[in-house]
């Protein structure tokens, strides 16, 4: 019976959505939940998990559990920030391109291709090196370089919906363009876009971790990527400093991709 439920689309969504909700709750209540200030030295450096510090301490003696909890908030901010930028820009460009077609479409698609071609990681490295690291700058950089894929998806869906007869019918009956968009196009565009978005966001998390590994993350805020990436050198002697934040990233990325997969599954 359980396997029957879990095989349905709804069933597959339960676990990952629960995971994402936990993430969100932890992120919102970080200040109350964390036992210590994540920036303060509260113990000996590189001590393993103990009662006082369930996840151990990092190199300079900060509590890792508080770090992971606050990291949930920073990572959530990054992911939501990037998502907002990507969604707004991609929808604007994708809808316009698909709906209007012609020259506008061509130009916009060329622009999006230019953004898609240079690997995001490289652009992020360049931008951070020249403009400085910082969560706000990171969100802008990642947002502005990630919208092109989604824009294409939206454009494709818009195109196919536009061709379909009942949109023409609706327009014949005098529905305004905006209403057409909202009532006919958007509902069809949403499923594919959400799949794409979820995959994108999980990649953003991993990208941030890789940037931190290179030393390009924001040192003023604790994020999972920063904790996991900058402690990679201790994997052999102080495994907890790298493992727990890395696990957090892994689980969060898993939840995001699972939601995406479940949404994209055809019945």
């Amino acid at each position, binding site marked *: 019976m359980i396997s029957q439920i879990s095989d349905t689309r709804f069933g597959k969504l339960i676990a990952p959505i629960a995971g994402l909700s936990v993430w969100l709750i932890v992120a919102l209540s970080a200040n109350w939940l964390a036992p210590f200030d994540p920036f*303060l030295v509260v113990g000996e450096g590189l001590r393993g998990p103990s009662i006082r510090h369930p996840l151990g301490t990092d190199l300079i003696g900060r509590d890792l559990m508080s770090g992971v909890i606050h990291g949930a908030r920073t990572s959530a901010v990054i992911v939501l920030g990037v998502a907002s930028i990507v969604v707004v820009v991609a929808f604007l460009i994708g809808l316009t391109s698909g709906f209007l077609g012609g020259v506008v479409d061509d130009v916009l698609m060329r622009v999006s291709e230019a953004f898609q071609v240079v690997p995001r990681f490289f652009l992020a490295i360049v931008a951070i090196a020249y403009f400085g690291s910082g969560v706000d700058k990171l969100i802008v950089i990642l947002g502005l370089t990630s919208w092109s894929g989604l824009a294409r998806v939206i454009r494709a869906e818009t195109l196919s919906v536009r061709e379909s007869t009942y949109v023409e019918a609706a327009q014949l009956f005098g529905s305004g363009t905006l209403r057409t968009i909202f009532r006919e196009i958007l509902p069809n565009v949403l499923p594919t876009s959400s799949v794409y978005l979820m995959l994108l966001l999980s990649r953003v998390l991993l990208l941030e971790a890789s940037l931190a590994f290179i030393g390009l993350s924001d040192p003023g805020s604790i994020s999972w990527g920063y904790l996991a990436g900058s402690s990679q050198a201790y994997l052999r002697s102080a495994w907890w400093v790298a493992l727990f934040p890395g696990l957090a990233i892994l689980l969060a990325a898993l939840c995001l991709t699972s939601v995406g997969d479940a949404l994209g599954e055809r019945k």
Partner: protein
Amino acid sequence: MRKILSIALSSLLSISMLPAWSANAATTAIPKAPCTKEGDAARGPKKEKLVCAEVQGSKIWVPRGGDLVVAISQDPGSLNPAATTAGAVHTASELMFNGLVELDDKLNPVPELAESWTVNKKATIYTFKLRRGVKWHDGQPFTSADVKYTFDEVLLKYHSRTRAAMLSALSVVNTPDKYTVKFIFKESYGPLLLQLDVTEAPIVPAHIYRGSDPTKNPANLAPIGTGPFKFGSYTRGAEIVLNKNPDYFKKGKPYLDRVIMRVIPNSATQVVAFESGSVDFLWGIPGPQRARLLARKKVFDTLVTRRNPGGANCMMTVSFNLRRSITSNLGVRQAIFHALNREAFLRNVIFSEGSVAVSPFSKGIVWAWGRNLKLPEYSTAKANALLDAAGWTGRDGSTRTAQGVSGVANGTKLSIDFLHFPTFSAYAELYKAQLREVGIDVRLRPLESGPFSTAVFRNRDFDTNIISYCNGNDPEIGIRRMYDSAQIGSVAFSNAAAYSNMTVDGLFQQARNTLSISQRQGLYQKIQEQLVKDVPYVWLVETKGTRIFTSSCGGFRAYSLFAEEAYCSS
């Protein structure tokens, strides 16, 4: 299914946690058997070729030939050690060059390219007689013209320590004949003999560089030197191969056939490469790995030293920008000093590989460091009291705000920035954490060398920063530039704090003009007492380097030309 997955995953993880077993673990140390006549040949117990050689003053049987593989952390980009003090360049290239005078492990000057020297009574003229028959790697003879060119066109323009110390004092470098060099100073100059080793003043060939920009000459990528090893190849980003110089002026040396410098940017990978046997020598061990590696004494050997290719007697120093309103306040600076638990830096950041600074000068300059100085001790109570007294009594969350601080509007947060190289991020985070406890908010700004120098020295756009100031083997070399008001300028790694005290300037000048060590010591003691009162910097920790190498190699020196007498059994 889940079972199989978890079994697979856990076996993978546990394989990596098992104690190491690798192909080359079973190496044994080479016995140091003494011999009598240098150059004698013999066969060892395993039929390997041995030669009687001089290593650090004693004659022992060493294996002949072999390759030494050394791991370096950065692609150097240039192999000209005279045009920069960058550690990466010096590490990769010093073995190809020489200085006029070397310093032994007790810092006594020892002939190198110069075979003898005389100093006049007033110490204004130093005359060096150069060794004859020394050849550059391309066969050209080494002469005094090379020394003059190197000083005039390269060192005094581009080598930050030598330039800062000598440019204003040196009048001219004369070459009366091909094998004589005269340094003529404007006034008495005491420390010259300590500044002529391959780290502070390597000699480059005039016939190669004359007429070109020394920082952009293609010879920087395929250098010609006089040193024990010749340039073999430089595969960018991968490795630098140095071959034995068969015509080296120290007959019989070096003992190795090749030294191969491998570029391995990631420190964890360096340790793996070392433990798996593909690398023989590491310049340093990442802190958390130290205990584990040092326990394997039979297989590895270590060497601890204060002298590095990038400079000797290095001290991690926090600079205050004395021209900014917050940090210009003496009470605030003292408070920050009190708030920093320097023991914690020693333990957690460098894993006790060094010592807490007890004076502004490094203890490595044995005769010059300040005795019985009372540096502000770790005390959050005192720090808080001083900040309260300075008027930072308001609160905004956990950060203090101004309430009656001169030059600062009421309600301003006590928020300062901290500039640092990305490699020093552990220092940065501990600094931030410790200052947070006394209500100071720190904004970290990691910057690479170029942008860092611009921000600190050219634009003075910082509140505090951290620099590894290498003091050198004499205060004139690396210390004076930090405090001399004449050194406030855009040259990198000069007087970062913009400290300006006429009395101190005068004392430094006097010390430079004196030859007597005891007199100089008295002067430097006075200087340091004043510095402790003025707190232009926080003298954090002195760092040492631990070199680690496989026991099948030996003969390494703790300082310049580290592999001149090294050997490896193949």
